[in-house]
């Protein structure tokens, strides 16, 4: 037998280790997450947010870190009934689609570059590039870098972290930023954003969006931009799920269809003006 065929492939991980049950090598007797016995020790001690942090960072969060993550998790857990990702979920719900499709719809739409997880990723990349240097931020926001090659992600149509359709910064975003900043130290990126929000908004003539606040909180928690993108996708799902189930109950007839609101330019139609 060639050596390649004999070699047992394995999954490599620093996150998870299991010990098998004596009677079944495919069933775990003990599960360890970053060294902590999940069902024998961690279960009644760690909060959900602490466990979430552990999974991504492989260390227990401090009380301050756990509080910050929990607060941003609450702030974004329901983006609201009019949010695009929630609307996608409700669309799945009213038609009686599967539960997974509700979340897949919310994820696909909530992944976007306008108010979605990709925007969080891009803002976090700007944090890596600019840090707490206002001049650098102003320069990159006004002259964003361009991809050399076409990509699955289209070029950004607005500065990441800002709302091109906004007027002033909505109160929930201001309230969230102020609360999160109050939970972090005075040198934090959140406090820097709070102090420089007006200057940044003046630079691009747009208010900051929730994506800016979330990305900055993830930055202060020292998550990578990829981790921030993933957390933003994950943590916004509770609202999408609940709204989809509610609309499933109300049914398709009580959900907007935009009847007569679509106007087709149809050159083949002799009845067209």
């Amino acid at each position, binding site marked *: 037998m060639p050596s390649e065929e004999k070699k*047992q*492939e*394995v*999954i*490599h*991980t*620093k*996150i*998870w*280790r*299991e*010990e*098998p049950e004596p009677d079944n*090598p*495919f*069933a*775990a007797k003990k599960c*360890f997450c*970053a*060294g*902590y*016995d999940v069902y024998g*020790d*961690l279960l009644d*001690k*760690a909060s959900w947010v602490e466990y979430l942090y552990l999974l991504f960072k*492989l260390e*227990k969060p401090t009380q301050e870190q756990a509080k910050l993550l929990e607060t941003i998790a609450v702030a974004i857990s329901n983006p609201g009934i009019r949010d695009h990702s929630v609307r996608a979920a409700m669309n799945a719900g009213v038609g009686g689609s*599967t539960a*997974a*499709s509700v979340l*897949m719809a919310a994820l*696909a739409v909530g992944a976007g570059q306008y108010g979605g997880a990709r925007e969080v990723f891009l803002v976090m990349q700007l944090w890596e590039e600019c840090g707490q240097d206002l001049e650098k931020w102003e320069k990159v926001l006004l002259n964003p870098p361009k991809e*050399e*090659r*076409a*990509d*699955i992600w289209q070029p950004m149509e607005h500065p990441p972290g800002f*709302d*091109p*359709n*906004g*007027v*002033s910064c909505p109160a929930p975003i201001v309230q969230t930023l102020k609360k999160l900043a109050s939970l972090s130290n005075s040198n934090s990126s959140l406090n820097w954003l709070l102090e420089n929000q007006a200057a940044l*908004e003046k630079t691009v*003539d*747009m*208010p900051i969006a929730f994506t800016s606040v979330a990305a900055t909180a993830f930055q202060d928690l020292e998550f990578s931009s990829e981790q921030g993108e993933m957390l933003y996708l994950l943590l916004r799902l509770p609202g999408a799920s609940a709204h989809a189930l509610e609309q499933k109950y109300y049914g398709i007839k009580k959900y907007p269809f*935009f009847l007569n*609101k*679509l*106007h*087709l*330019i*149809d*050159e*083949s*139609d002799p009845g067209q003006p």
Partner: protein
Amino acid sequence: MKKNLSNLIQHENNWITEMGASFPGERVVFRGKDVFQELSKFSWMQVLLFGITGREFSEDQARLFEGIWVISASYPDPRIWNNRVAALAGTVRSTGSLAISASLAVSEATNYGQRPLIKAIDFLIDTCKRIKAGEGLENIVLTELKSKRMLAGYGRPIVNKDERIKPLLELSQKLGYKDGEHVLLALEIEQILEKNNYPFKLNAAGMDAALAADQGLAPNEFYHFMSLCFTAGFFPCFIDTNSTSEGVFFPLRCEFVSYSGENAREWGK
């Protein structure tokens, strides 16, 4: 910043489109064509391409594009990463549509699938333009390799040689599309790589991209067209595991996880 609001107000309860609409009990319009009167004469592949580009494609062109899918992407091998998602969904008795949707989404990958495809066609179209503007091909290729350390459309994750090139070339020859400028360019680039001792051979993504570019597809149009290309391979993978005992698709023993993290420790209070 009040000007920012005008876009939303303009579109409130008002979506103006040329793409299409259904008029229940009457007709369906698809990019200006009546589905029942005009599009019913099209093959599905022609409808798909028309939907993506707004342009009509001949039967031979549709056969070429269909051949690209059949030859390049219809591999019912459940070890291939996107197919494996369909297989896993099957083994746990998820639904067929969830399996296919998830596998499709996973196909938008960096190491294979959608990302190399769009980058390959962009590179070939861009290179073709630059040569016409007077640049040297060898210089373009070597500069691209130096800056990106890879060349979209060349090389492969597991084996270098791509068995799909030959049948793709045979199909394109049969249909009379073999000598398009992008196909010839793609083959010439392969020779340059060989001459400069780079171990990258033209792969199917590069050949698909070249064939599509010769038919006038822009990078985004090619990207949309190829987004469904793997579906034929997903279904057998799902059906196979779905019709075998539950949960038995490549089961993993606890010991087949190689852990290199922290030693056992206590959470504390």
